[in-house]
């Protein structure tokens, strides 16, 4: 577009194991970039002010709010989104499968963020008890489920039953 003065910056990063190079608008959040430029629409934007947690993704293995981090800040980092949780053959991760078995979702809009939050948390704290798990989950809002089935799903993949 001629006369388009919107600032853009080149970024190179890894997304779900794939190398990505792009010119991104400076003001795009990581969530915007994933959804708009990479068409990874599984990451959802629920509040865009950092409270609801729907946009949570992993950056270098840590749970990060996709709405609070700028895309340019992800330059050189490893990003994992919900699209990267299942294995290459499409098999669900144990946590994803547990959500299916325990009815851990209803509308499914908050689910990707919750799965990413819990994936990071369970990797860090495989011995967590229910109270700690609920505390870790308290940064993600789900309006549908009332949380209990999510907690049950997460507890079912904690030790001694194996990793996420």
């Amino acid at each position: 577009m001629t006369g388009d003065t919107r600032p853009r910056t080149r970024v190179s990063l890894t997304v779900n194991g794939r190398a990505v190079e792009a010119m991104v608008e400076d003001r795009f959040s990581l969530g915007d970039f994933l959804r708009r430029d990479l068409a990874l629409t599984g990451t959802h934007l629920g509040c865009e002010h950092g409270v609801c947690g729907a946009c949570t993704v992993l950056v270098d293995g840590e749970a990060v709010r996709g709405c609070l981090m700028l895309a340019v800040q992800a330059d050189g980092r490893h990003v994992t989104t919900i699209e990267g949780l299942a294995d290459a053959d499409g098999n669900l991760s144990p946590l994803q499968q547990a959500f299916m078995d325990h009815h851990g979702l209803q509308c499914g809009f908050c689910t990707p963020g919750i799965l990413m939050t819990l994936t990071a948390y369970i990797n860090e704290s495989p011995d967590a008890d229910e109270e700690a798990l609920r505390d870790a989950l308290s940064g993600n809002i789900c309006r549908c489920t009332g949380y209990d089935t999510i907690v049950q799903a997460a507890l079912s993949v904690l030790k001694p039953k194996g990793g996420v």
Partner: protein
Amino acid sequence: MVGRVFFGQSVKRLEDPDLLRGRGQFLDDIQLPGMVECAFVRSPFPHARVGAIDTSDARAVPGVIGVCTARALPDHMHGKRILLQVPSPAITNPLTQEPLATDEVCFAGEAVAVVIADNRHAAEDGAERVIVEWEPLPAVGNVADALKPGAAKTHAAMADNVAARQALGYGDVDAAFKNAAHVVRESYHTHRGTGHPMECRGVVADWDAVDQRFRIWTSTQTPHNTQRAVVDMFNLSEDAVRVITPDVGGGFGPKNQVYPEELVIPVLARMLERPVKWAEDRREHFLTTTQERDQLWDVAAAVDADGKILGIKAALIHDAGAYLPWGAIMPYISASTLPGPYVIPSYKIDATTVFTNMISTTPLRGAGRPQAVFAMERMMDAIARSLGLDPADIRARNLIPADAMPYDMGLTYRDGAPVKYDSGDYPEAQAKALHRAGYADFPARQAAALAEGRHIGIGIGNYVEGTGLGPFEGATVRVLTNGRVAIYTGAAAAGQAHKTTLAQICADELGITPDMIDVTVGDTGKMARGAGTYASRITVNAGSSVRIAAGGVAGKLKALAAAKFQVDPESLELLDGLVRITGTQGDQVSFADLAKMTSGMPGFVLPDGVAPDLEASGYFTPAQATYSNGCHVAEVEVDAETGRVKILNYVVVHDCGNLVNPKLVDGQVQGGVAHGIGNAILENMVYDADGNPLTTTFGDYLMPTAEIVPDCDIIHMQSPTPLNPLGVKGAGEGGTIPAPAAIVAAVENALKPFNIRITECPIRPQRIVQLINAAQQNT
């Protein structure tokens, strides 16, 4: 496997595989070639006159394609407002919103212009640069102020702020009060909150200039209402407007009416001849998506010497907000819900609906019932206190006995039929809940806790809920030529797992597994008529229609196979996609082959009486609502220093008739209670006296989170209704309805040593501390 039945089983959800992989298709995930995006210019004032609008700076912003105001809309939209959803003679001022406000805005957030750009970011830049000459006007920011003499006018041209007046009742209430041994009077106030689905609203529209048709995707519970509104606004034929719901990320009520954006985005798509998207952000959701629950109640009960209620007199003021998209349905539901599960021999209520300069109110999970149940249950507690009886005892003395079913309450429900409770055992529901909650031992627990300086309390909430409202929700079932089965229904889904539930019902009729079935919901192009997903009505209506339609298809399959094999249809059975002679391994034919034959194969002659295509439609039309019921018992601990409320135990006895999928019903109840906990202790949409919204982020407006919501102890009673072929009632709202009443009662009970009364909800920590301080200063 013969005798396999999916109805009643906790079948895993057909919806999950895509949603768990991030492959859902929500509104904002839709990308069409050449699509542009929008941002709206919204009023910063609760009430103002709209002067000149200067769009020149906005048009110069990089990426901006255009700006549209009310006056730039096509002529056919000038002066037109959104179709009123439910007209009623009780409405004195049937005012709905304009697509874009022309001369006057009546709540903060009402849109006056829209900026179109190549992405949302640029559109927002443009919206900031639209200059509007506003002339602020006096405003009403509180339901209590609306009827005061000299109150500001919410709409400049109106004589007063009254939107509707309704009077309901039966029996001789004056005689009841004359003969009463006790009269108990209280006033209650319930505050605004909203649904806050995690997905906000949004619309994508595409105008096909060749076919002269719209395709409109909208995140709604009611696609057919959107279609009706677009047809009305554009004066098109219904065939020219196809409304499709993608995956919808939660509804909870506020997505069940037509919004201005659902008319503005289509008109832009037609003007620009390219697809247009608008995805609401959370701030817009706080400002412009409908809310509910601001009501003021005055209730008086006439009670005899034994604690039996003789009559109830009540007055209700209901906050409509700025417009009436849903008419005056909520105050009507409140008024007809108040008597609830109790024998109330006489009843009189006057409900006044008033306009205020806040976003309109429309049905929100419970729809007028949580407020009515709060008023009634708080009144039961007040009567108990007044007569020196236990709250459980006063309720037990007044509950409708099981042998009185069906019970005609004496009122007319919103569907025009009498309020006639169809089935249920209310005394048993309360008894079971009290037993599970350890109610009998509670005084000892409470005394022991108090000895440790801890304040624990217990509270009860009983309710009856009209569900499964008609007039209908249709379904078509078709066997496809590949042997799979398709179900189409108008009922949009927003997390309730309609696909799974409807597939379970269909699977049993056709002898197949649910994974053989593809369900399409909420697409007006696939189902011409529909009402929508609200009023806990889909399993009753669409579920029954699927049963009827699938039964029709089963009959056709058998008739065709019977003709082929020259046998009696009665001798055939359906199993795993085959029609075969019962119990033998002999002749059989697949659904796929029968579908191919009946789809127009040359040379194939249909047997007598069998219509072409392996398809049938069902339109179940219920004669009246079905009434679900339940009892909640909450046990809480209150920190008297900080006012923090912790829920220690929460018991739900729930009766929605037969359960199609118990795990899904549990999920509805648990999620509903979480919403009710929000309404009880957290969620409050605060406005200042002039109607300026003060809580517009999730930092100010607190939603229930995982460390607050307990695991509810849910007990199902199943009293099948005789009113539909499945014996089911609605389950989507019962979790929410009595929760504020039960929790607030428990908080009050915990604070017994301070002798405070709580007559409002939500009850937040600062208010609890304030009440304790006030009580201590008075002693």
